[in-house]
């Protein structure tokens, strides 16, 4: 430990916990509970998707052709890679490898940035064709309720995008703390928690991709 002591800032267990182990497990339990909340948060939008898909199947068939499968596919791969690097960042923190932790977190951040850039390009493409949400919708199509699909599309991907942005903020916060040397084998709780959150963002996209881009 003497070698570690010089490189890392020692973590102090909060006064109401008995041990670092208890503190870690509690944080993880809390985080999982929060993720359960996140699932229900997204579920209402998925229910809305299912309802309108049932009501207007032909419209959905028509609408999804406006989306670019390639872009969606690219974004799926980017997010999967970022999930991998996130898992690796946690692992590096577990074995007290500060340099690797920093690099993996940075790659995750870059992937998240790429995801948002691709998303931005997609949005711009939609806007160009008049496929804007709600009252600004001027898209042309055979179905008269085409705007509902794009209303849902912007709500789903928009809310997911906001989660990605929040995740990016959290990763930047982790990068700063990693640089200070706060995470090592005895304490890496924040990295683990943000990791769980980040995987959930990935999970939601795993469902969004086929439902929005592929299923016709």
């Amino acid at each position, binding site marked *: 430990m003497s070698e570690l002591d010089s490189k890392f800032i020692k973590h102090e267990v909060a006064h109401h916990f008995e041990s*670092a*182990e208890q503190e*870690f*497990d509690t944080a*993880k*339990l809390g985080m*999982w*509970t929060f*993720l*359960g909340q996140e*699932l*229900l948060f997204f*579920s209402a939008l*998925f*229910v809305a998707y*299912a*309802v309108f*898909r*049932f*009501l*207007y*199947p*032909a*419209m959905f068939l028509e609408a999804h052709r406006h989306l670019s*499968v390639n872009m969606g*596919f690219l974004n*799926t*791969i980017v997010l*999967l*890679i970022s*999930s*991998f690097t*996130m*898992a*690796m960042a946690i*692992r590096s923190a*577990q*074995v007290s490898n500060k340099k690797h932790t920093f690099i993996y977190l940075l790659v995750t951040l870059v992937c998240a940035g790429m995801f948002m850039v691709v998303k931005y390009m997609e949005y711009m493409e939609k806007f160009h064709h008049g496929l804007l949400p709600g*009252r600004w*919708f001027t898209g042309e199509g055979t179905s*008269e*309720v085409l*705007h509902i699909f794009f209303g849902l599309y912007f709500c789903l991907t928009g809310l997911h995008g906001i989660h990605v942005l929040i995740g990016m903020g959290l990763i930047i916060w982790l990068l700063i703390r990693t640089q200070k040397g706060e995470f090592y*084998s*005895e*304490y890496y709780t924040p990295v683990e928690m943000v*990791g*769980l959150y980040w*995987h*959930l963002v*990935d*999970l939601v996209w*795993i*469902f969004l*991709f*086929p*439902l929005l881009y*592929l*299923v*016709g």
Partner: protein
Amino acid sequence: MSEHYVVPVKTYVKTLLTLIFLTFVTVKIAEFDFGSLNVAVALFVAMIKATVVALFFMGLKWDKGFNAVILITSLIFMAIFFLLTLGDIETRAQTDKVEAMRFGINSPVNIIGEGHSESHSKKH
């Protein structure tokens, strides 16, 4: 703290490769037409992917059992939400028809879901 299981790098690499492979499967499978099963098939593959992420990336495989319980509980309540709401939507057109027959109701309201007519006028 140091007794936490450190997952071998190999496991994470395999997980990533599996997920990328499954993404290809997702795209390829969408080119086939399974009729009404299209959504079910797409969701099935997505669920496998989600399970892989939860087990390996999120570490549920090595984690305390209760965290998995939380996840499964949330999924059960999501399922309740889906089933009961769709249970209403899918049977609504049927009700409306019965009432129209029995009571001769000629509502000016355009009944949603009736024959999936998609005949809503757009008032923008």
